[in-house]
């Protein structure tokens, strides 16, 4: 470390050391969700309140099922990166690492469960 100048350490990367990659990732998923969320809210809102048979028939159709699958996947990726920033703001050290790993696991577990359920309904 002593051999690196302050400028060399900071150049292009900022204090987070990963530059703007995290923000750019959040921007991509945010734009994706800006399209997906209205579609999902309207399709899911329409399906909620139906009978068991109606719900199954509705989510066997490609459009609502694909919208739901994409929304669950992209929103959980967005959540995983968003919650990371929240954790980094309020905790540090081992607690920070533990919470980031835990929240990442929760996000992917929810995404996997949602996709499994949708696949089982559709097939």
């Amino acid at each position, binding site marked *: 470390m002593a051999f690196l100048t302050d400028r060399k350490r900071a150049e292009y990367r900022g204090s987070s050391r990963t530059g703007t990659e995290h923000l750019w990732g959040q921007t991509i998923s945010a734009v994706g969700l800006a399209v997906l969320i209205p579609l999902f809210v309207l399709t899911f809102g329409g399906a909620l309140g139906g009978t068991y048979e109606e719900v199954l028939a509705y989510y066997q159709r490609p459009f609502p099922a694909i919208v739901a699958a994409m929304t*669950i996947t992209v929103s959980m990726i967005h959540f995983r990166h968003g919650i990371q920033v929240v954790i980094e703001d309020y905790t540090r050290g081992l607690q920070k690492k533990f919470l980031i790993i835990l929240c990442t696991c929760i996000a992917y577990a929810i995404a996997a469960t949602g996709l499994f359920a949708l696949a089982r309904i559709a097939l």
Partner: protein
Amino acid sequence: MADDNRGNRPLSPHLTIYRPQLTSVTSIFARITGVALLGAAFLVVWWFLAAATGPEYFATVNGLMTSMFGDLVMFAALWAVCYHFLSGLRHLYWDTGRGLEVDVAEKMAMGVIVGSGVLTILIALIV
């Protein structure tokens, strides 16, 4: 020269020090709604899993989600998603370097507050 305080810097933000402003409060709510929406995602995925499992389990979960309390939770989740959505659009606009003047930012903050309420009621009436 080198920063000797690595890894032990003060944490942000110091909420107790600053006077609440329209812009800071709307930003804090964007964070709160974002975290809270994990709960909504959990409920939605649970509902899908119940539908995939069978009619009895679906009846239980669906009954919970469409009960009086479930409706209330879903309405709150709808508002949270509308708020986070509009607030997110505001951030995407800021990311282009526009709208960062205080008066414009405060107008957009009001837009997010009023817009999320209007959008929530509108969607709740449609679906």
